[in-house]
């Protein structure tokens, strides 16, 4: 089984710890993953803003970068949704059918829910719109989190509501985006959880920006970093990646 990691451009440049955690997690589960260096961006920002020509070139570039792999795994619900839902517009059905969001890959392909993780914190999970409505991840992330040793999962009120990121929406409609994000943070704070978890660093980047500006006691964290954390090699927020 040839498995490729699609780390995504956002994770590559700004959230490498998510990529590292994904690699360690998959290796721990016996998967040898490859990182095709030609990969860059799935084209979602271009497509969602209306620039179809620019998007199309990136679609073809991405399809070429991942040719020959049985499975492509990505720790990003929205990029997985782009590949799965939109790539077939340009005839790229093969990559669409081989691409999995991380929690999907774990539960559906590897058929595990207990990944042997250890994370002794209270956590609340934001399902994010692409995971919820496009990929229909359902209870997969919850099942994975519930099996983590030491972790206490708290239900997020209004979980299905959008956090207000929406790609360029966050900038084009900054006031509404901010109001939505602040409501999401308020709901998360009401759970008194220490960690706000999601399967998408794009939503988390927006929420983290608000949390830091407002100085709230809440840590946004990608689910890969929670599932990657073990008793021997626990999640250490302040340490540089190694």
């Amino acid at each position, binding site marked *: 089984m040839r498995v490729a990691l699609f780390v995504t451009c956002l994770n590559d440049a700004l959230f490498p710890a998510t990529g590292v955690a994904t690699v360690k997690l998959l290796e721990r589960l016996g998967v040898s993953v490859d990182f095709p*260096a030609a990969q860059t961006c799935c084209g979602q920002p271009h497509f969602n803003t209306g620039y179809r020509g620019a998007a199309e070139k990136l679609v073809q570039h991405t399809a070429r970068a991942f040719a020959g792999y049985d499975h492509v795994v990505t720790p990003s619900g929205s990029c997985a949704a782009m590949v799965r839902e939109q790539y077939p517009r340009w005839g790229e059905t093969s990559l669409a059918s081989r691409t999995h969001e991380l929690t999907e890959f774990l539960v559906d392909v590897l058929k595990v829910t207990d990944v042997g993780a250890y994370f002794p914190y209270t956590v609340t999970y934001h399902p994010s719109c692409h995971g919820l409505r496009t990929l229909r991840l359902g209870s997969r992330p919850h099942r994975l989190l519930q099996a983590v040793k030491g972790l206490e999962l708290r239900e997020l009120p209004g979980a299905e509501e959008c956090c207000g990121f929406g790609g360029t929406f966050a900038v084009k409609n900054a006031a509404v985006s901010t*109001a939505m994000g602040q409501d999401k943070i308020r709901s998360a704070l009401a759970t008194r959880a220490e960690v706000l978890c999601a399967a998408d660093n794009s939503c988390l980047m927006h929420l983290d920006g*608000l949390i830091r500006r407002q100085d709230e006691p809440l840590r946004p964290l990608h689910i890969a970093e929670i599932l990657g954390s073990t008793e021997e090699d626990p999640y250490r927020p302040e340490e540089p990646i190694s």
Partner: protein
Amino acid sequence: MSAAFLGMPPFPRAAEEAVHNTTLRANLRHATHTIRAKRAKAVAELSDWEQLREAGRQIKDHTLRHLDRYLIQLEAAVTEAGGTVHWAADATEANRIVADLVKATGETEVVKVKSMATQEIGLNEALAAEGITAYETDLAELIVQLGDDRPSHILVPAIHRNRAEIRSLFADEMGKWGRAAPHGLTDSPADLAEAARLHLREKFLRARVGISGANFMVAETGTLVVVESEGNGRMCLTLPRTLISVVGIEKTVPTWRDLEVFLQTLPRSSTAERMNPYTSLWTGTTDDDGPRDFHLILLDNGRTDVLADEVGRQALRCIRCSACLNVCPVYERAGGHAYGSVYPGPIGAILTPQLRGTGSAIDASLPYASTLCGACYEVCPVAIDIPDVLLHLRGRIAEQGGPGHRVERAALAASGWVLRHPTVLAATEKLAAATRGMHPRRPPGSGAWTTSRELPDVPTQSFRDWWQENRR
């Protein structure tokens, strides 16, 4: 569409004002969350909801594909039943026809059933210019009319008002339009409803001309249908001598039987009722029963242009239930006025720029008034893929390349080039990491982001470099 909305600021600016209006936000949040929960419950009661939704989608799609044929069938059936059919290409023509018909009766007052089509064409204003006063009889429309306001919701046009605001409107304004509100009016719902009832009754009994829209038009029988909750509609449809109905051509369904589907999905989606309290159906005229004179004005006003767009045409399936407004997180914060059209919320964001074109700043901003979260598509009883149409319209606008889009297009094209050259991307990332200590906290161009949010820190190493060092 109505001239009242010309010169509206683009959505982001209008929405920003609304976001900072705390009363408005609280009113909207309360109203949308309440109806949202109720709708979900009412829909969950039907085990065949998904089949009904699919049936509704298919009936509408089929009708739209053969609309020319069904409209001609409809015209024949209405004429056969004693009605008169008029065709209006745009708002001006429709308003002209209505004004002439009212003038021919010699009346200067008309009562109105709440109707989106007449709002779309700005009928009340057009009639006023001809010396004809149009009285809105739907409670929420009455509130909007008394307040010299604009509707902000399809179903609940006064959703942005709370009870205290309504009480003072009634007390101050009703007397100028007819019967004044009783002394000592409180803001209890019963009191407010009674004041409206007394005020309106006088109008129903006096009016000799009624104006309505319709939720559906049945081609095979020439029957029009209005569904409503208050009963004012039925009064307007039956009491006057002359009834004039202005209806968008897309409201056609082929057969009587097709109503079976929509009379289940519409009330549950819009008011969370199993069935709407009043369903009025009329077919032409009948001796000694209801209006003597019936006129149907079939309104195009941009609809055939929408029909010509393969992706966008699904917006014409809309049955105006407003479920998409009630679940929309953007509508909830921005309110209906920010959309600058009688069609607000997700459906407005795809319908308005198609009906009016994307030439104005407000129309070009509407397809971007969404995070593409998909909640609207999920609740739509005729399965309009609103996010997909939004993307389609964004494509059209970006290609047109208006003022705001020239810079953006250049930026996205440049990023596209970098992103197709991984070695350039790697170098860019390396440079960003190496210079991370020197980055300003608020780099130029990040304004809209950093007003309320911090930017993410640039890490010491990209993933790409980590992989190179640790796994190759």
